[in-house]
């Protein structure tokens, strides 16, 4: 069989399997949904019949030699990578595989502090040492940006033994660092570049979007096809380029990957890849047009600031992802999370997240103009009905961390529980974050400062969904010692 991008080898093999009407004496025991009629009624018969486990004609994700290998090869080609790995535990597993491939216990990795928790979790597990670069910060918006090239250069010269640099491409808010320059510096110093592209899948399919990791020369990238690429939730792709050894990457993946990867997720990656290859440009063109229109209309309402390419400063905000609709809400006296709650509870509109000063709406080619109009009008209404003075609103989303020990040492240290309000000066033994965006306010090994405590209490008070701590109510914190 010759492979080309119009093929979906994995999805086709899976469907052939369904049509073959095999007698199944393997797992899953629901056997096409016949074991429990509620399942096909709920999910649809076809979905149940496609939910099978690995078998000869369907290859094996842990050791791909057939249709999965082929589907991954097509994905690698579509994304301009040397190798692609289908992932079934989210971009979390792709981010962790990157870190575990590049570092081992005691190795250093340079990364911006505004990484997703999955990156720091990886360090808790493998004992690598984070060298944080404080991201740039936009004064007006209070949000963290990307890393400045000068800061990266400084970190590299201070830590020439670091193994890798991790870059958000882009951040949740859509802001990119100067990836090409960072790749150049890192490669000169013999370090790998790992890109968290949880929010950047679409960069591969439209030339007016910021540069993708693979075309910027990065070594590995975690691309969340499920977030903006149209595959099923939890499916993701890890991309690698030479000199990264794909066989070693595969071993690292199998350390934690299920041996029963879902074929629904895997085949959705195959189908999404073909769609992106042929229609990606049109899809993201439409997305950008929706976002540009919404930005213009929201900015015309006054009070809100839907930010865009004007943030670009050639350095820590090197590029902006125009498909993102991020809106600064503090000037109408409401936290982003409060606007998020009004949208949901009063207007039946679900957005991606609201944090302290901003909200983020994800637009896609699956949107309809009338829904975009609804979002804009609901924001207008929330302003009309709830606007108040901005005094007293917390004004920054990012606080420089004060590091006392590595994440692993802190997480596995002897710990005790203290009331959150009495934690200032102590070293955290666990994470605190709002999810989304899932960027830790404090990570294991960091000292609680008055600013950090104020941030936590404010976010909790405004209704952010706070996670990470053993205590489900966040009244207590596990600290070291």
């Amino acid at each position, binding site marked *: 069989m010759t492979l080309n991008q119009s093929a979906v080898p994995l999805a086709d093999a899976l469907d052939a399997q369904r049509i073959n009407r095999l007698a199944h004496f393997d797992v899953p025991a629901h056997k096409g949904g016949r074991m429990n009629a509620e399942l096909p009624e709920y999910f649809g018969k076809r979905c149940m019949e496609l939910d099978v486990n690995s078998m000869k004609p369907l290859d094996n994700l842990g050791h791909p030699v057939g249709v999965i290998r082929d589907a991954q090869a097509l994905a690698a080609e579509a994304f301009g990578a040397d190798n692609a790995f289908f992932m079934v535990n989210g971009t979390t597993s792709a981010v962790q595989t990157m870190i575990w491939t590049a570092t081992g216990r005691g190795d250093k990795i340079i990364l911006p502090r505004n990484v997703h928790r999955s990156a720091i979790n990886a360090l808790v597990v493998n004992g690598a040492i984070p060298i944080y670069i404080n991201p740039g910060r936009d004064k007006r918006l209070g949000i963290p940006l990307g890393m400045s090239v000068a800061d990266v250069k400084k970190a590299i010269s201070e830590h020439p033994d670091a193994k890798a640099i991790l870059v958000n491409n882009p951040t949740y808010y859509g802001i990119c660092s100067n990836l090409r320059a960072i790749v150049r510096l890192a490669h000169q110093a013999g370090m790998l570049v790992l890109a968290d592209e949880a929010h950047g899948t679409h960069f591969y399919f439209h030339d007016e979007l910021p540069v993708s990791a693979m075309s910027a020369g990065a070594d590995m990238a975690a691309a969340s096809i499920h977030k903006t690429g149209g595959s099923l939730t939890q499916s993701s792709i890890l991309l690698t380029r030479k000199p990264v050894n794909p066989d070693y990457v595969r071993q690292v993946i199998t350390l934690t990957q299920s041996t029963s990867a879902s074929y629904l997720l895997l085949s959705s990656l195959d189908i999404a890849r073909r769609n992106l290859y042929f229609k990606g440009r049109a899809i993201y063109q439409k997305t950008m047009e929706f976002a540009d229109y919404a930005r213009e*209309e929201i900015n015309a309402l006054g009070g809100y600031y839907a930010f865009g390419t004007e943030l670009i400063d050639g350095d820590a905000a090197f590029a902006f992802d125009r498909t993102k609709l991020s809106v600064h809400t503090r000037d109408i006296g409401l936290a982003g999370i409060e606007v998020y709650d009004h949208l949901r509870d*009063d*207007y*039946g509109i679900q957005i991606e997240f609201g944090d302290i000063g901003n909200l983020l709406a994800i637009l896609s080619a699956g949107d309809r*103009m*009338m*829904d975009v*109009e*609804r979002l*804009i*009008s*609901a924001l*207008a*209404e929330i302003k*009309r*009905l709830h606007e108040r003075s901005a005094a007293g609103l917390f004004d920054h989303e990012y606080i420089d961390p004060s590091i006392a020990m590595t994440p692993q040492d802190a997480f596995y240290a002897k710990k005790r529980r203290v009331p959150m309000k009495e934690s200032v000066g102590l070293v955290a033994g666990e994470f605190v974050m709002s999810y989304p965006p899932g960027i830790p306010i404090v990570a294991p090994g960091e000292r609680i400062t008055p600013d950090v405590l104020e941030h936590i209490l404010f976010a909790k008070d405004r209704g952010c969904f706070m996670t990470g701590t053993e205590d489900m109510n966040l009244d207590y914190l596990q600290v070291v010692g």
Partner: protein
Amino acid sequence: MELWYTDQHTDDVRFSMKASVQVASKKSAVQQIDILDTPAYGRVLVLDGGLMTTEKDEFIYHEMITHVPMAVNPNVKNVLVIGGGDGGTVRELTKYRSIESIDLVEVDKDVVLLAKKYLPFTSAKLKDKRVSVWFEEGLRYVRGKKAEYDLIIVDSSDPYGPAEGLFTREFYGTCFKALRDDGILINQHESPFYYVHQRSVRDAHKHIAVEFPVSTVYQCHIPSYPSGHWLFGFASKKYHPIEDLDATRWNKLGIRTRYYNTDLHRGAFALPNYVKDLLNK
């Protein structure tokens, strides 16, 4: 061969009428538009397969959506009609000499073009000098308006297609802002009868009631619409639909109607118990 047009009222209920000829058929940017001639209902307008307007019974709908608010506040000068591309609501409004301007906002230009060509019985007054037609999303149009109208009439299709946004709280709130201090909002409020439509009736009422101090519904009988039992919403910042009805004054205007009269006006607000229960849920 016989030609029949069927309107799917619910998954389990259909309403069919014999058709003699298909007069026009067009896929616009927004929806599928069809116009048919039928022996029983005359010329009919069908949007995305759903019956919108029939020559035979449109007068009921258009009179009830217009004269009820006009009899409560005869001083209305500036009116906004959202939807209503067939022109029937505008036709009724133009009967009032006191009205100074009528803005018609219709998202689908082709509906207006086809109505002008094939539905003269509703569209004839679209050329009245006081009428301006805007082809835009209703929600977007109203967003920019503040205290500019005395009356807003939402003459929409049902909430399962292009008109979905016109049944939302953000839309009603935006209308509130666009109305003057004694403004009235009338909306096409669907039928309370079949279970599948009840949720939209209840939700629309709930959304309007949080925005407007006065909010109720009134009813009429439209033979060609699902169940025949139809509701309109009456919401206002000031006027009560019955206490503020000035029947003598309206009757002096000498406006000719076939369905509406001021006795029926009062009765239309007397609701069956099942409708009351639905709205109070």
